[in-house]
């Protein structure tokens, strides 16, 4: 590889590493609240089936 290409490779990963790490932390730390209808009442499930 040419020098410019080698340097660009390394620089890109130096930038992407913290971006992906922060996204991972944020995704796990700020999980959305479950939707209100996520759990159907048992009676409704029985009726539907």
């Amino acid at each position: 590889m040419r020098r410019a290409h080698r340097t660009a490779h390394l620089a890109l990963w130096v930038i992407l590493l913290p971006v992906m790490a922060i996204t991972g932390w944020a995704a796990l730390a700020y999980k959305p609240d479950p939707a209100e209808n996520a759990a159907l009442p048992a009676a409704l499930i029985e009726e539907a089936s």
Partner: protein
Amino acid sequence: MAVGYKAVIWNGFKTSYVLTLWAAILAFIASFIIVTGMTQPEGESFHPVQLVMRAFGFAGFSLLSFILIIGPMARITPRFKPLLYNRRHMGVSAFVLMLIHAALAMVWYHGFSDISPLLSVLTTNANYDRIGGFPFESLGLAAFLILFVMAATSHDFWLANLGAPFWKALHMGVYLAFALLVAHILLGVVQHEKSPAYAFWVMGSAALVTALHLITGWREVSKDRRSGFKAEDGWVEAGPVNDIPNDRAVIIPGEGRERIAVFRYDGQVSAISNACKHQNGPLGEGRIVNGCVVCPWHGYEYKPRDGRSPAPFNEKIATYKVAIRNGIVFVNTKALPAGTDVEPARIEEAQP
């Protein structure tokens, strides 16, 4: 290197490579569907369409992760070099998997709306200002568009017409696409599923890919620094001639830290650019077969004394003047015009 046009020049190795690849892909998809289907908590089972959609998505992401570790692993161990040869077949396969995933998602979640499915993807969830519930589909769409451009331009036709520097720069978009896919999965399935397996899979893949690129990238930069480029009148020492294995090369830094491959063959030494004309592959890590330097990435060939591909091909690279004094090889780091014939330095003359 092409003479006469063939869309894909199939050979036995390439055919078995692609067949093995798709057998592995189908095995992954089947395993994913079986394991995920069997381990779903009571009352949270997927619809089969969702399961297949997710299986194709994870297969595409996993294949892309594997593709991205081939490059750095090939720098760590030569065992990975054969995988480089047809890496673009893997890339196009990963795109096909993601295309199926995207098509299923479009139809299943956005195909029954009054508005265009594409518009629906971008506007149904407008929570762009929050992490929890972020419209992760838009990240997947952005990655998909980048991968589409890359798959569409993967053929050597585009490499030849766009030129290697631009083509390589364009295809570095794969790293951005990978980061977007990581975010797509993290803010999508990882946020909405209870199982930690998805988080482990995506974060483990991202950590592995990133670590390997950083380690090998840093090694390359350190190698350049350690080499300590010192040219007197343009000549640098490349080391004892006996340290160069027959039909192999040592790689030394040239002007601007561009590398030079110094080959020993048939009792003589020649120096050429280390960057292959095709995709800048490291020629100095290749070897001489039938009188030609063979690029370890895709098999492009060059004659060591003039840097020209053998007829009927017409690629050519820079060459350098070489001399041997008291068993030590010296190289003039001023690159000669590509294809310039340079008399090799004879080893027997230097070491009677």
